[in-house]
């Protein structure tokens, strides 16, 4: 496995009698990992555990062999997390948002560097506009630009393509492919086509348990159908389709 591995050892998160994560164990190296599962399957809990928003009831998450919670800010400095519903400070311009998050990541971005990051997501023309006037899709793209700042080693995207038009969706997929070469990218979504297009592996999660890990063959024509079939078998209903 190339790069440092993000390793989950029997991770369990319990809320009363409900197990949001149940003995979740796997190891993620460089590459793109699609987290696939219905609502309430434990995807969000897993992502929040990695981001140290919540901590597991039992089990261990390590990065490069070290406990991520012991690493604390050091680990968070290598992590980038784009939540599902991000609504940036309305008084900030897009450049402000990039500069602000760069500082939070311990980096110094001048306006030129911020504009370069915005250009990656086709937002350069709106660089100096206030985020309060942005559409949902523009905010999403800004979120992606924020995630790209500082070449993070671990990247988490929660439903990243929601609200993006087909052209932007394609642009995003290309960006993700590039990131997957140097980072561990975790992509949580309901949409199978998003995963089949970019993910190297698909992790199927049900009731907090990892029920299957599938290595994706992105070149195979029949791959989407196979993933759909697997989803049906695993969860008993069809996955959401790309809109």
């Amino acid at each position, binding site marked *: 496995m190339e790069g440092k591995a993000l390793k989950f050892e029997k991770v369990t998160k319990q809320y009363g009698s409900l197990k949001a994560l149940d003995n979740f164990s796997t190891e993620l190296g460089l590459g793109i990992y699609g987290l696939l599962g219905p609502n309430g399957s434990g995807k*969000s809990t897993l992502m*929040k555990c990695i981001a140290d928003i919540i901590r597991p009831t039992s089990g261990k998450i390590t990065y490069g062999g070290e406990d991520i919670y012991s690493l604390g800010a050091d680990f968070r400095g290598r992590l980038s997390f784009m939540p599902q519903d991000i609504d940036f*400070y*309305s008084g900030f311009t897009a450049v402000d948002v990039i500069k602000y998050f760069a500082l*939070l990541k311990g980096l110094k971005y001048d306006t030129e560097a911020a504009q370069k990051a915005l250009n990656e997501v086709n937002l350069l023309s709106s660089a100096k506009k206030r985020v309060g006037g942005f559409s949902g899709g523009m905010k999403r793209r800004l979120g992606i630009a924020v995630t790209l700042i500082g070449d993070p080693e671990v990247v988490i995207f929660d439903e990243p393509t929601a609200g993006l038009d087909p052209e932007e969706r394609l642009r995003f997929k290309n960006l993700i492919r590039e990131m997957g070469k140097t980072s561990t990218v975790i992509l949580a979504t309901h949409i199978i086509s998003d995963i089949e297009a970019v993910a190297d592996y698909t992790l199927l999660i049900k009731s907090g348990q990892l029920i299957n890990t599938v290595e994706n063959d992105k070149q195979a024509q029949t791959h989407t159908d196979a993933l759909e079939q697997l989803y049906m078998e695993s969860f008993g209903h069809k996955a959401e389709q790309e809109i």
Partner: protein
Amino acid sequence: MKKTKTAGALLGFELKKLLGLINIAAFILLMAIKPLSGMMYTLAPTEYSKDIYHEYLDELYGAPTAEKEQYILDEKERIDDILSIYEDMILAYERGEITAEEYKAYDEEYTRAKAQQPAFDKVYQKYQYYLTLSGTEKKPQYFYDLEIIEYINGFGADVMFILFLTVFGLRFWGSDRTGGMSLAVMSSKYGRQYRDNLRIAALLIVSTVGSALSFCVDIGIYAARCGIGTLFLPLCGMEEFAACAYNVNILGYLLLVLMIRIVWSAAVCFMLVPIYKLVGNIYACITAGAAVIFLPLVLMPSLPEVMIKALAGTQLTGFAVLNNDMPLSIIAAVLTAGACYALSFAFRKLELKHIANNSA
């Protein structure tokens, strides 16, 4: 050095965020309420004629002298004499001992004296109060003080700035939670390390500048109403402020109140942090914050004295200056801020729980 620069740059963004939340219309309304509340004070009825009271004090204006004392004593004797013979004069007129013209002349004097008496009693009360100050460091002066008292009391009850600070302070703290930014900020490298301190610092800057601005507006309205020269008159000239041991002029008193307000506004900035972390919903958070700050004001008459000396709501009114508790008040503010800062660490896990729940 690098960390200091990062903190400085992040503080700039926190200030930008905070100023972006402040509603200019609300701020203008706040400033407009001030003169309106001042007008309401002026319209408040008194038991005596303000014009007559004004005339007496114009006559007496300046430091007390033997001549002024004599004038007051003579005036008291005159009014007492006129009023005391009222029934005798009626009887004398009825018995034909005085003529109709004499009675009419007396009746006019009586009517005037009757109107003068309540206002003069107020002046005489002031004279007696000044006598108690003789031999002390305080050097009172006669001046027309009614509008000044009304307006300064308005300063004391200036709850609008406190309301402004509480609501916008908590909205500022809650801006991540309502905007879904918490996850992104808290999962970043410095999102936790600097955030609390920088937000407190941003609020401290805005609250101090806000207090000073609010003070400038107050002084502007005061000067327009009472004249800027009255700011330099001694506070001890007004019996209503007799409890204040500080030998200062009106401006000095207002500056002391401003200082206490700034100190307690700073304490409030710290108080908002554990409230935000403890309460999940931002609207419940604002309600809780307002209750903590304003309930002491509402309950002030029934609160034990020791609590009055230590509660933000009462201290923000300048209560400490009038009651000579400034050092105690400052110590209470520092202790309150310290306790709240410690609580903000204790409640960090609760905050993360709220963030996780809000984004579920």
